[in-house]
């Protein structure tokens, strides 16, 4: 390196000659353009802009120039360094983009590979069906009432106008518990929840009670000693059968589809009078050419449940004044509703717990 030009003599500094600087620039730009990848460019950067690069060395020589020459040389070197750095940056960007693109191509995976590590869970379709039904009624303003499955005989029968010698008692094949004098049964219906509700709430009462019930039926494709019912109870002033019909029509259309209505047939239940069987319009054939319909077996209608106007005797036993209030009640099999809604002919998969059954329904139906 040349020493300081203290005497202000014009000193010949070769690297600062214009043609030399131009050469440096050309060499640098050529090397940048030739750099094929980011590693090569890195080397080019060191070679042409690093501490020991010709341009850096030339820059340091500027100080050796007499003051009047420094400006000119400084400008020349500065512009050159600027141009080189710009070219480097541009090339860097190009190479980075290329690199990234190549990386993405190289990182391609087979997204069709299986991804299932953990088991899928699921809730029981009867639970889901019960919740769906409860939600339909909650949306109307009802509340969900509950009661025990091991129940007092009085609540399961007597309070519901099924006295000890009522022939209808033997229609419901009851599981009795020991000792018999304790008068405790497995509830044969969700109706004792009705009685409990009236005994613990004041009208107006609008409740549904989904739950498990028991009958001494041998277990087969269409019978189970345990099954599920949903019961509805309304007690209010001026309640009529028309309200019952309206409610069940709404329920049917919500559960089975728009336009699905119900049909009443006279029937008999001790706790309601008048009583009716409810049929729901077949949601598959809608009673249009039902002959070939498998869902309703050619009937056009499907037996759905029972209902009626709450017998005033029941109101009295449960502390509701029948001269002020009237009510309606209805009950449907949840399992049955599920079976025809989902085309299940044999109920046993509901209670056998094969995980393939319930998991196929996931967490909502």
């Amino acid at each position, binding site marked *: 390196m040349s020493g300081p030009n203290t005497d202000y003599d014009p000193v010949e500094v070769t690297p600062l000659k214009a043609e030399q600087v131009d050469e440096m620039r050309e060499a640098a730009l050529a090397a940048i353009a030739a750099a094929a990848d980011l590693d090569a460019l890195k080397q080019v950067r060191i070679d042409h802009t690093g501490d020991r690069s010709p341009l850096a060395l030339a820059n340091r020589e500027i100080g050796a120039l007499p003051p009047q020459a420094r400006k000119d040389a400084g400008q020349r070197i500065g512009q050159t360094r600027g141009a080189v750095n710009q070219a480097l940056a541009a090339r860097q960007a190009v190479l980075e983009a290329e690199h990234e693109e190549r990386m993405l191509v190289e990182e391609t995976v087979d997204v069709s590979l299986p991804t299932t590590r953990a088991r*899928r869970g699921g809730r029981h379709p009867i639970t889901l069906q019960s919740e769906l039904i409860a939600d339909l009624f909650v949306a109307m303003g009802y509340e969900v009432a509950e009661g*025990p499955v091991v129940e007092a005989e009085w609540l399961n029968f007597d309070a519901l106008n099924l006295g000890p010698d009522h022939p209808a008692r033997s*229609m419901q094949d009851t599981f009795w518990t020991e000792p018999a004098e*304790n008068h405790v049964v497995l509830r044969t219906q969700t109706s004792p929840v009705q009685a409990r509700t009236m005994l613990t709430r004041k009208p107006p009462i609008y409740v549904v009670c989904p739950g498990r019930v028991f009958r001494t039926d041998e277990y087969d494709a269409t019978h189970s000693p345990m099954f599920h019912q949903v019961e509805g109870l309304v007690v209010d002033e001026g309640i009529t*059968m*028309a309200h019952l019909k309206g409610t069940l029509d709404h329920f049917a259309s919500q559960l089975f589809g728009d336009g699905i209505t119900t049909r009443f*047939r006279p029937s008999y239940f001790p706790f309601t009078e008048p009583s009716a069987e409810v049929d729901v319009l077949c949601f598959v054939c809608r009673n249009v050419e039902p002959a070939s319909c498998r869902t309703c077996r050619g009937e056009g209608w499907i037996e759905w449940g029972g209902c009626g106007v709450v017998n005033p*005797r029941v109101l009295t036993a449960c502390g509701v004044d029948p001269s002020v209030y009237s009510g309606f009640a209805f009950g449907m099999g949840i399992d049955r509703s599920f079976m025809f809604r989902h085309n299940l002919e044999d109920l046993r998969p509901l*209670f056998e717990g094969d995980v393939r059954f319930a998991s196929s329904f996931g967490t909502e139906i």
Partner: protein
Amino acid sequence: MKAPLSWILEHVDVPAGTTTEHLTDRLTLTGLKLEAVVSPGRDITGPLVIGRVLTMEPEPQKNGKTINWCTVDVGDANGTGEPQGIVCGAHNFEPGDLVATVLPGGVLPGGFEIGARKTYGHMSAGMICSSRELGLGDDHDGIIVLPADAGEPGDDVRPVLGLDEETIEFEINPDRAYALSIRGIAREVLVSVEGASDFRDPTDRTPPAPNDEGHPVVVEDAEGCPVFVARRVTGFDPTAATPDHIVQRITAAGMRPISLAVDVTNYVMLETGRPIHGYDADKVQGAIVVRRARDGERLTTLDGTDRALDPADLVVTDDSGIIGLGGVMGGETTEMSDTTTSILVEAAHWDAVSMYRTGRRHKITSEAGKRNERGVDPTICEAAADRVVELLVEHGGGTADAGVTVVGTPPAMPVIEVAGDLAARVSGMEISEERSIECLRAVGCEVSGSGTLTVTPPPWRPDLTDPQDLTEEVIRLVGYDHVPSVLPTPPSGRGLTRSQQLRRRIGRTLAGDGFVEVVTFPFVGTTDLDDLGLPADDPRRDLLRLSNPLSAEAPFMTTTLLPGVLRTAGRNVGHGNADLAIFEIGTVTLPRHSGPAAILPVDRRPSDDEFAALDAALPAQPLRLALVAAGDAASAGWWGPARPVTWSDAVEAIRSVAAAIGLEVKASSADLAPWHPGRCAELSVDGQVVGHAGELHPTVCQAFGLPKRTVAAEVDLDLLIERAVHLRPAPAFSSYPVAKEDVALVVDASVPAADVEAALREGAGELLESIRLFDVYTGDQVGEGKKSLAYALRFRAPDRTLKEGEAAAARDAAVALATERTGAVQRA
């Protein structure tokens, strides 16, 4: 009730062209529900015709039988007009007889296809039929010989044999006992089918007036037996056959033909609804006395069963003792037989409740009992007895005795007052008082008054006791199909209760964690509890027993959900579902041994105390969650190896459930069946034990057919849900930098990690943000009986950046406390 259509229409007219379908539709809509329409010939297809036997050649066979080679004139039914050659094994006919002949191409009940086939050396082209072959009964002694005027050869034989008779099967509700008779059904046709007319009541006859010459009868219990009618037929021919139309009708109605005398009583019961009993009059000794049974009395009933009688049973006696269980079943000693020539006919009205109790007590279900316990018209005893006598005389050649015994009078029907607008108010339809009166009169009520109607129901309707019963009669005749559809307007509801919401959340959490919900029956036997390895004094062995379990193997209500889920898991493994995680949410039954649940009165509301006592008498029924997992929790794949289920999955599942409702679960070691004694966690929340989780004992896995290392948990959801966090305060986060410190501590292998962590937590003080155990090491480097626990600690201040050394100091304090409490030594 199975009712032959022709029998119904014998008693009521319907407009010409009324189809069976229309008739049954209308009856269904007014309350007699159609079950099925059947006809005995429904399974017979193809040519079944009248044939006239032209020739018959008996041909003895090597097997000892003799067959008849017959030629039968079947008119043009065989297409040729030539006589048909048929082999027949029966001998009860002769040339010239008309017989039921099925020709090749016909199909008889049971899918029996008839063809021309070579048999006994002849080509037999068809078959001459017996009753049994046509599905008309059990008679197979010979073929059917038709009356000489049955028709011409080649005519269809179905109408002659009643094979095309339609029988309608109705489902009869308990309140419509009157419809357990042709009389009742015909009356329903009258009120249900538009244009029906001219009801002809089979009991509308004039029986001879009662006199003192009949069989002496004393009724000691007029409440139990308000009416007793006795008639007598003598000179009866016990061999007389029952006319075909009676056999056909009672068979169609589902009863078995037995003998003329029995068939006639059944026929009249079906026709009128009034059960009738016939005694062999020569075996009845002295006066008949009706009374309640006495302690220790016994009776052998017609079915051959010797029964110990109850003092509440109504019995019929004579000088010899008890001869019948009144209204339910007769006794053996006076049974009619094939030598009976004198018949004593009893038509009595019995107290329905007594009938029901006696039937239940002796487990007797009979057609008579079914009617008597539901209530029969008490006014028709004389007419029904008279009808029986008439038929016995007509078909059995006997003579009706002049003596007619009638004891008692039919009880009066109640008088009911009902508001004239009640039907309108109950139904929500516009039903005028006039319409209501019209409907009530149509079903047989006497009605007077206006505004408030005074109604006397007809004697065949004992079910009509309340004003509300009368409204049903009105509304069903107006038509349930006319009830309008109106939605009521409930007050604003409060939605699901919190407990209901949380239960759903718990189910969803478990499903999200890979568990599948199952529903099992709550019945268990002691074997189930033995399989769980429960010790003899385990409280879970205190079970509520069912009096009438479906299976003697499982007579109890379960106290734990585990047997159900473990059996279900075993079944799944058996089905090849080896990687398994299931759960069940349900109640268990824990007896309280608190005495009886009272039968309270029903004419008033029970007091709050009475109601509370009722509840207290029931067993506790807490809601439980049980779960089981086996196999792999995560499967092997291209990502790496499988992760098998371990004890910790069971604990974690419960922690996950608890976290979903804002709770934290503490696990501590426990030893409880059915779990592995070294791998069982007692789970608690806020110091309350809520359940257990862990790996199952190997013998339990074996007992339930589960793979080794299957894990399970059972917790009380009521306890969890009670403690669920409701309103959680929003958390505040520090955004200052975190300082991380790791420590490895060596402790005795017996020291619970939870204790070490608790000491570290407490020692670290307020700056500790979180602590996580990231490694557990046992082996040479820490020495026998020791383990190394490595914790990652994170420190952070809420309001500033921690100063150099602050985190390290807190860490050292944490370690110091852990050392003091658990003997932990920091690993170098």
